């Protein structure tokens, strides 16, 4: 019924190679885009923006970034929180040092700064692999957080070591700060998500992405067939850190507005993003979105159902939230170890054949 390629003829190579080759899938994608751009900004309110959609979009960028490194290139990283902090502190320093700079430039520059830092910490990946690399990136995590706590220049010598995002505008509308409208913040993040996801999808389909995957699947074999591991691994670190840095910058500037590095970008953040890509599905852009949605939306949904819907005590609800989310992670990983993206792909396979499975 759905998801038929029957009758959907491709007359050019470009059409044959498009991201969503099946018409139904393509229309679904356009529909989601239309909803996200055409409908949501008009109905969004502060709660939906600040508690649900902004964190979802921002974490989706981080998950795409980590997915490029871990899912596509096979390099395990536990330094995501630290790299996000690099993005946040870069944008803070830029925002306060150059008040005239617009937010897009600031955010992109934060991404580039993080890419440089990421490449530096990625250098050891040429010599160490697997668990040992995870430990090396863990060191990056702790070092970066320590650095931003230790050197007062990073937080402009403020008394408390907090950084606060001042108000900055874009086309005359406030994007950061308390006076920013929720739909502006939402669209600003959505634009970044859309462009970055689009680039990531196409990068992973192209020659660079194939090199990453070759390294992931078997680095010695990849080297023998002519993939340069230095280039492949470092580009993966650079692109991944670029994404993670942008996500960290947006988390600080648009979403939170005030940040304390140890709390906002601690080791728990690294694990959170890692869980997102594991649950969503390694090596899948859709998986990054699904994982971010799972980890961000599910706790909020549970909280609303348990406390507001069922009138439970808040402490009890919070404990149960841990239990339920934990149990669901286990169930998902037992039922489908390749994550939500794989479940989605299986569902599509089934739909293609339904209702005649033979």
């Amino acid at each position, binding site marked *: 019924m759905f998801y038929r390629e029957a009758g959907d003829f491709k007359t050019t190579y470009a059409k044959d190679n498009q991201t969503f080759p099946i018409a139904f899938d393509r229309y*679904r994608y356009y529909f*989601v885009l239309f*909803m*996200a751009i055409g*409908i*949501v900004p008009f109905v969004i309110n*502060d*709660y*939906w923006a*600040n*508690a*649900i*959609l902004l*964190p*979802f979009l921002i974490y989706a960028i981080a998950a795409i970034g980590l997915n490029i490194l871990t899912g596509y290139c096979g390099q395990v990283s536990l330094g995501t929180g630290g790299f996000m902090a690099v993005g946040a502190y870069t944008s803070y320093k830029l925002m*306060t040092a150059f008040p005239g700079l617009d937010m897009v430039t600031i955010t992109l520059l934060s991404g580039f700064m993080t890419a440089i830092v990421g490449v530096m910490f990625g250098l050891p990946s040429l010599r160490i692999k697997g668990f040992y690399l995870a430990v090396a990136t863990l060191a990056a995590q702790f070092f970066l957080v320590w650095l931003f*706590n230790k050197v007062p220049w990073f937080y402009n010598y*403020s*008394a*408390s*070591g*907090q950084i*606060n995002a*001042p*108000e900055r505008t874009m086309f005359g509308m406030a994007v950061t*700060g*308390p*006076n920013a409208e929720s739909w502006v913040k939402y669209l600003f993040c959505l634009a970044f998500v859309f462009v970055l996801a689009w680039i990531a999808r196409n990068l992973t389909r192209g020659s660079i992405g194939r090199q990453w995957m070759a390294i992931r699947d078997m680095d010695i074999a990849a080297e023998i067939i002519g993939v340069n591991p230095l280039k492949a691994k470092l580009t993966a670190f650079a692109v991944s850190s670029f994404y993670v840095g942008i996500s960290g910058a947006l988390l600080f500037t648009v*979403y*939170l*507005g*005030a*940040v*304390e590095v*140890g*709390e*906002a970008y*601690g080791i728990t953040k690294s694990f959170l993003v890692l869980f997102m890509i594991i649950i969503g599905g390694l090596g899948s852009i859709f998986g990054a*979105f699904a994982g971010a*949605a799972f980890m961000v*939306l599910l706790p*909020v*949904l549970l*909280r*609303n*159902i348990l*406390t*507001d*819907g069922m009138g439970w005590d*808040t*402490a009890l*609800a*919070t*404990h149960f939230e841990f239990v339920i989310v934990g149990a669901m992670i286990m169930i998902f990983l037992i039922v489908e170890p390749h994550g939500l993206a794989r479940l989605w792909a299986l569902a599509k396979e089934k739909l293609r054949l339904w209702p005649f499975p033979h």
Partner: protein
Amino acid sequence: MKTLATLAVATVMAAGPALADLVFPDLSYRTGPYAAGGIPFSDGYQDYMTLLNQRDGGIGGVMTRVVECETAYNTERGVECYESTKGEGALVYQPLSTGITYQLIPRATADGIPLHTMGYGRTSASNGTVFSHVFNYPANYWDAASVIINQLLEENGGSLEGKTITLLYHNSAYGREPIRTLETLSEMHGFELSQLAVDHPGQEQGNQWLTIRRERPDYVIMWGWGVMNQVAIQEAANIRFPMENFIGNWWAGAEHDVEPAGMDANGYRALNMNVLGDLPVFDEIQEHVIDAGLAAGDGTNLGSVLYTRGMYAAMLAAEAARTAQEIHGVADIDAAMMRDGMEALVMTNARMEELGMPGIGPEFTVTCEDHGGSGMARMQQWNAEAGEWVTLTDFIAPDDSVTDPLVAEDSAAFAAENNIELRCNES
């Protein structure tokens, strides 16, 4: 498809209040490493509001309603709690977390909802000319640092020359707040200040106490919270640090902080901004709230240090609401009126006695310029034998000549960073 799923949730949450009531959101934390402090505070806050409903029929005839939201001391959850509760007509926010306070200062100011950060949060917010919607009466961190040093000065015959003092602090905005004041004070009084940071959540302090053991400072001042306090006091006992020279601020001086260390904690000192012991109001809470089965917790926290403080916070909020009702002549006030009420709040001994809590805090008057109250605090000491805190001193005044310039400097920086026009010029 995500959008659709989320829209479905919206309908679940869209239920709004219809009746006239005074909404006091309680951003509590009953889970996580800071729950030990969060639970009694929240119990005290909610129980006092329930008492007002049960005994007096609300404030000025309008019932109060507490909306509880669990933050787990996490800023992202705090933001979510703020956004989800502000639509219910929230009058004042008390997040009991310095990190969440920093998030909420710009948001609440933009939304026109006052924040009351009693003895925590951003110290320079006591400057009302810059921070229109933030109140931190009756005291703040810089007052606390100054009060501790004043007390030590008195004990040492007016001079701390050549003494060494170590600040053991929670490595967050909260713990770093007093550093600037203590640095200024150390220059003024000639004592040597060293700083030791303890990372969240505060379980790991072996290294810090090794340093203290090696350096043997004359005094250790602690800015701790949650599980960090218990660990620190145990560690201090382990290295046999003289407990009377170990002084916590008012968030490091509750029963649950010292009890795990047993008899070894005897003599540990801490600040307190409210009174200890039996207050007449506790009997009324017992009668109207706990015995009636309406208590927020299990009722066992009644009378503990942080319960009393939570109740004190609720009392200040209720009194501000009452003041607002008088100013505007409206019983069902909104957040803007509440702000006016907080700015006109006057706390006298007579009023506190009338409320059944004589001398619970210092007397103070809030003005347009001064949102900080008197800044006075007491020193208390743990008596492990009796298992109770003993008040050592009366309310000690801070050295305003030290804190005022610091407040002016920090708030001016904030005003410049955010293009804030100074208020209170008309007088």
